[in-house]
């Protein structure tokens, strides 16, 4: 093989692998992207049952109902709209009423969101970013969500 031919093989191979990678990515993007929605988005956009989405908002106060076999029902609210969610399994450590939550799953025909994943929060000061944005959009963001992270002036009073 001449130098030119060898270089062609190299470039051809490189482009080939790249093309495969791009094809794989485009294909995967079609199937495996999950959109984030707030309860208001779901009410407005009429998302059909069966579409996989991420639902974010606050767990409505007083809405958690625990059933048998680790079944839990609660409502997710963004202040304007709310959506009932059902989930079976162990809830994350910091799942609390009045706190932010992100649930992944699908809507059923009756308007209930069947979650298969409830995302864990790592810290009491951490509000999922999507949830914070959704709350700001719906005008129900309270400043104290972020201020909890700021420094409280405690201790040492001389």
């Amino acid at each position, binding site marked *: 093989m001449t130098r030119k031919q060898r270089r062609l093989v190299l470039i051809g*191979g490189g482009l080939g*692998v*790249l093309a495969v*990678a791009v094809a794989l990515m485009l294909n*995967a993007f079609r199937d*495996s*992207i*999950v959109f984030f929605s707030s309860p208001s988005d779901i009410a407005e956009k009429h998302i059909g049952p069966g579409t996989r989405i991420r639902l974010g908002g606050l767990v409505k106060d007083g809405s958690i109902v*625990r059933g048998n076999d680790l079944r839990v029902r609660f409502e997710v609210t963004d202040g304007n709209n709310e959506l009932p969610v059902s989930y079976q399994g162990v809830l994350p450590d910091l799942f609390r009423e009045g706190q932010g939550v992100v649930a992944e799953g699908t809507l059923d025909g009756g308007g209930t969101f069947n979650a298969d994943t409830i995302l864990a929060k*790592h810290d009491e000061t951490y509000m999922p970013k999507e949830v914070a944005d959704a709350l700001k959009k719906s005008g129900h963001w309270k400043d104290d969500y972020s201020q909890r992270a700021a420094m409280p002036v405690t201790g040492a009073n001389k």
Partner: protein
Amino acid sequence: MIPELGHYALMLALGLALIQGIMPIVGTRTNDPVLMSIAAPAALAQFVFVAIAFMALAECYVASDFSVLNVYENSNSAMPLIYRLTSIWGNHEGSMMLWVSILAFFGALVALFGTNLPVTLKANALAVQAWIAVAFELFILITSNPFLRVADAPFEGRDLNPILQDPGLAFHPPMLYLGYVGFSIAFAFAIAALIEGRIDAAWARWVRPWVLGAWMCLTLGIAGGSYWAYYELGWGGFWFWDPVENASLMPWLAGTALLHSAVVMEKRGALKVWTILLAIIAFSLSLIGTFLVRSGVLTSVHAFATDPTRGIFILAILVIFIGGALALYAWRAPLLKQGGLFAPISREGALVFNNLFLTSACATVFVGTLYPLVLEALTGGETKISVGPPFFNATFGPLFIPLMLAMSFGPLLGWKRGDIVSAAQRLLAAAVLAAVAVAAAFAIEHGGPVLAPFGVGIAVFVMAGAVTDIAERTMILRLPMRATIMRAIGLPRSVWGTAFAHFGIGVTLLGIVAVTAWGSERIVAVKPGETVDISHYRLTFDGVFNRPGPNYRDVVGHFTVRRASGDVIGAMEPSRRTFPARNMATTEAALMSRGFSQLYLSLGDPNPDGSIPVRLFFKPQVLMIWLGAIIMFFGGGLSLSDRRLRVGAPRPAKAKDKPTPALQAAE
């Protein structure tokens, strides 16, 4: 006093870094040896002052000086000493201090041990290293000063995020940073070579140990983080394709590619321009990783603080360094001479194959990680999407399979022109072994995924291929045992290193396949006296008790573990841990190892009826995932100890005493 001392030392270090960044460059331009020789002592002095600053911060943490804001926010006098020390980098400011300290440390190492480097290359590389230091020291001093004081010193600190109060914090971030920052050396050498417009095979020999060391640390750092997440988060997963994890995987993929292309450059003088580009990419991805994790663009356990000025500052650092490096590359790379012809089927060809697939896989991870961020930015926050495991499994997986299959062939092919048929013949035993493994996996499995046995087959092929390489080189069974041992001892350590690292990949792959395909999970609510069955084990819940800790309280569940036959093999005690300082609870999973497999048990919040929800997993061969990483690390270490890399000289021709066939065996 101590924090002010640290603050001052850091400012002095910045000044020294400026000198180190400017004078040597001027020296190489004007050919002034005095200016060039400033680089090494400046690097050493800069390290000394950064170390003083770091130690001052450490002293604040050890002494629990809560008048320092950073200590107040992240520490607590009730924490054990080890966590007070590790919480130095368990926060944004401190972790940046660690970053800079490691950067200065590596700079000092180059200054000390780079004695055989050409003077101009060393001066330029240290100068480039100093620019990075300047950027990050400015970043700390302007936006993330860890030495700020509180006017009214509180009596007690706010405690470290409980999830970070774990031995994992002592290990995972420093190893990861050693890896990230280690690539800065390769970057500095690459930029220095571009500035000089000259590069040769020796460049690869100087840079390879640094890349190898960084790669080893990164491998262990990623594996450590994976194991930490596995046992701490209570979800039992070892890899989530979380953007933060991807941020560390991308430099690893690029670094692995760099490691291999540098071999081609060192041995054959080919792929120079490509290797330089990879060096730039590997460090750029490390910077992007730092940016993604630290700027608060992503919310995760790693995002300590979200302060927009920091994000913009880091973005500016990214643009200047990555943009600048790539622009310099576009301008100067055409000057570098190409060299080294090789046929597509050859050791070089195999390494190019490796590079193509590794960089493509890296690109898919890059796109999957950044696409949601870009889309959100482009649509003004209207469209938020998440790209999860299905995307990565569908892109990364298919690209890694050919890589795994080809891995065994590479070391068996000759340089310049290889013989694929003969390589395939020598791999026959490995292929037969793999086929047997596939058949065995099909026979044993009860209704797992159809593809899983083939995964086992690939893993076995990779491992057997690595063994084949050594067996071929030592001519085991074909020569008398004594001669084989002599040959094994005579093999270059880098050959052993390759075999070990490749073997480790196979071990990790085997663990991943086994645990993904044949792992089982039970989620149930149990009351005292009830039992849960999983795999061949039966767990009896005996009840809960309280156990106080230094700065937390544990509610512990006691479970007795029995074999299906009934004999007791031990107890597992998962707990819910409450930290009063932050009013936060964590799940402490209990693990029981059976060979390489593990039983994994974690508790949920107790139900009103007195039962406790538990997650119980059986994780077959799960420990192999991390064992493989340790083997890779060991292989890297063997390679690093190879004499040629240390002295930069070819091995003395001792081989002449041996029978002639030994001559072609080594490389």
